[in-house]
């Protein structure tokens, strides 16, 4: 096993530096893989092979001179929520249609500065609203994994479903994701890859299309945590153009991998043993505890008493913000426009035609919870509960260094198993939402397969700006789990 599709981001970086492979070769191999497999997976909304080849050539020139940043020549995919200068950016919505931003998001600008090669824009749930990548106006993304016993198309999770599928299938060496309530971690778990949602304020939100401003946070998705660490170091950093960006130095995350967990106190929130959780998820969680204990960590039970209120609080806060954030899509300055004789008619027609059903539903709920007579009962109360949720975490972290939980209550489900009740669908995010509400960092690492051969992830939640401890603990799990399974659909598998 030593083909071009066996590279991790880190090993490709080393091979490029050592000139064992050229950036052009590496990029072409990935472009070929996209052409071969993405017709089925649908992980890309926009492919940019020409720009990628050009960037790869430039990378080779830099590498030949012994120059080039930490990602020089590394082919990446970009979630289509990050605005990219001159490259169509859609948020997977019809309403942005052929929107071509004349600017670059800070996160992608950071990656470009470090020499990354962008292969294109990755599919997602429309405006990042979904947990199965079924709401994209550009069609659903297929999970490259299959159940052992069936050919049913599985969902890759969401909203960063295209990013997850592309990484898992070997179409890119890494991808950007965004996480509002689990949109990096849950798809990472569903596709057997790693993903980090950093501390709120770690990565700039400038130029990233907003879903819920107080929750949205960009992060890396890649085959393993080393790759994620390399990406995060590039993506993160203070940005004066984002008022919520935090001015604190970016550590060398890769160096944290080898720290180990000796003496680390790992909290197990008892409230995460939710009713009806499949036994195999419980078992995997227990396995995770054992791995960390065996590596020298101390396992401690903790309580996060407001856990059960995380989801409803999240839906009120996120949807309220979204209803306002998405008001700018009105058919006047950019995006799709449906003509009408009056201004209000133009708004109503453009937004009716431009937004998909889930987005409309969320905008309407968000509008409702902010409207006169309901604000105190819903929005204000939710923001108070949010304070309590954050306090739960802060209190727990007085006693422990990280928390360990499952990432999602199940593995990937089939596209046609999507629950018809929206509330059932929202329950996918039950374990990921609380960390988002509190703003603390969290990650997901692949830890095993379920009985039908579909990957499952474990989540680690850390203290503010302590991504390094998360990476150290996550890497310990990675090593113990030795997760080397590959999905059915993978660039390295010849047809």
């Amino acid at each position: 096993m030593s083909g071009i599709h066996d590279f991790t981001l880190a090993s490709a970086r080393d091979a490029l530096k050592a000139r064992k492979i050229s950036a052009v070769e590496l990029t072409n191999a990935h472009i070929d893989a996209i052409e071969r497999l993405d017709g089925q997976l649908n992980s890309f909304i926009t492919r940019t092979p020409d720009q990628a080849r050009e960037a790869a050539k430039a990378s080779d020139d830099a590498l030949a001179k012994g120059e080039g940043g930490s990602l020089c020549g590394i082919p990446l995919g970009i979630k289509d929520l990050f605005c990219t200068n001159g490259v169509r950016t859609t948020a997977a919505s019809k309403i942005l249609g052929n929107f071509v931003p004349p600017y670059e998001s800070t996160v992608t600008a950071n990656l470009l500065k470090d020499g990354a090669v962008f292969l294109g824009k990755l599919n997602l749930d429309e405006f990042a609203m979904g947990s199965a990548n079924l709401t994209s106006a550009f069609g659903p993304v297929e999970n490259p994994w299959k159940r052992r016993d069936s050919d049913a198309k599985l969902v890759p999770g969401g909203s960063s479903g295209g990013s997850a599928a592309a990484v898992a299938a070997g179409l890119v060496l890494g991808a950007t994701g965004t996480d509002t309530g689990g949109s990096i971690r849950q798809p990472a778990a569903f596709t057997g890859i790693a993903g980090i949602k950093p501390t709120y304020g770690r990565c700039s939100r400038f130029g990233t299309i907003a879903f819920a401003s107080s929750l949205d946070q960009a992060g890396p998705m890649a085959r393993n945590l080393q790759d994620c660490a390399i990406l995060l170091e590039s993506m993160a950093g203070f940005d004066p153009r984002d008022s919520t960006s935090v001015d604190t130095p970016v550590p060398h995350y890769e160096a944290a991998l080898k720290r180990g967990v000796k003496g680390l106190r790992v909290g197990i929130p008892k409230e995460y043993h939710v009713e009806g959780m499949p036994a195999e998820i419980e078992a995997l969680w227990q396995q995770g505890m054992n791995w960390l204990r065996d590596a020298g960590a101390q396992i401690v039970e903790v309580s996060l008493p407001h856990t059960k209120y995380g989801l409803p609080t999240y839906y009120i806060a996120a949807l309220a913000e979204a209803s306002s954030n998405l008001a700018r899509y009105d058919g006047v300055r950019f995006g799709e426009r449906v003509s009408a004789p009056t201004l209000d008619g133009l708004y109503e027609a453009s937004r009716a035609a431009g937004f998909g059903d889930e987005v409309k539903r969320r905008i309407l709920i968000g509008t409702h919870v902010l409207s006169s007579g309901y604000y105190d009962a819903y929005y204000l109360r939710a923001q108070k509960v949010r304070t309590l949720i954050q306090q739960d975490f802060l209190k727990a972290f007085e006693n422990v260094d990280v928390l360990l939980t499952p990432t999602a209550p199940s593995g990937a489900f089939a596209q046609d198993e999507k629950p018809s009740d929206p509330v059932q669908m929202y329950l996918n995010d039950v374990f990921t939402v609380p960390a988002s509400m509190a703003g603390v960092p969290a990650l997901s690492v692949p830890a095993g397969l379920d009985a039908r051969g579909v990957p499952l992830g474990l989540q680690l939640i850390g203290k503010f700006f302590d991504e390094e401890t998360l990476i150290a603990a996550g890497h310990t799990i990675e090593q113990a789990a030795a997760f080397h399974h590959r999905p059915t659909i993978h660039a390295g598998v010849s047809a």
Partner: protein
Amino acid sequence: MSLDAKTVTRIARLARIGLQPGEVETLGKDMGSIIDWVEQLKEVDVTGVDPMIGTGLATPRLREDRVTDGNCRDKVLSNAPERKGPFYTVPKVVE
């Protein structure tokens, strides 16, 4: 409990989302079930709790009063679905 058609219509009007007659009922049902579900927050005792505003991590920052942006009309109008000369256009608004 399903949201009634009048409420759904009023909210849709506030959000400027045109609805087909058939959509009102489905949306009312879906929204109703979500609203019912979030009602559980009423159990939480929030006496004396401040609402969360920001995560308390960033420190307030102010920009200096200098002109550093603008003068980019081509960019501003680059994606306009309809324009006339240097303006965006909309259907005539009668005051």
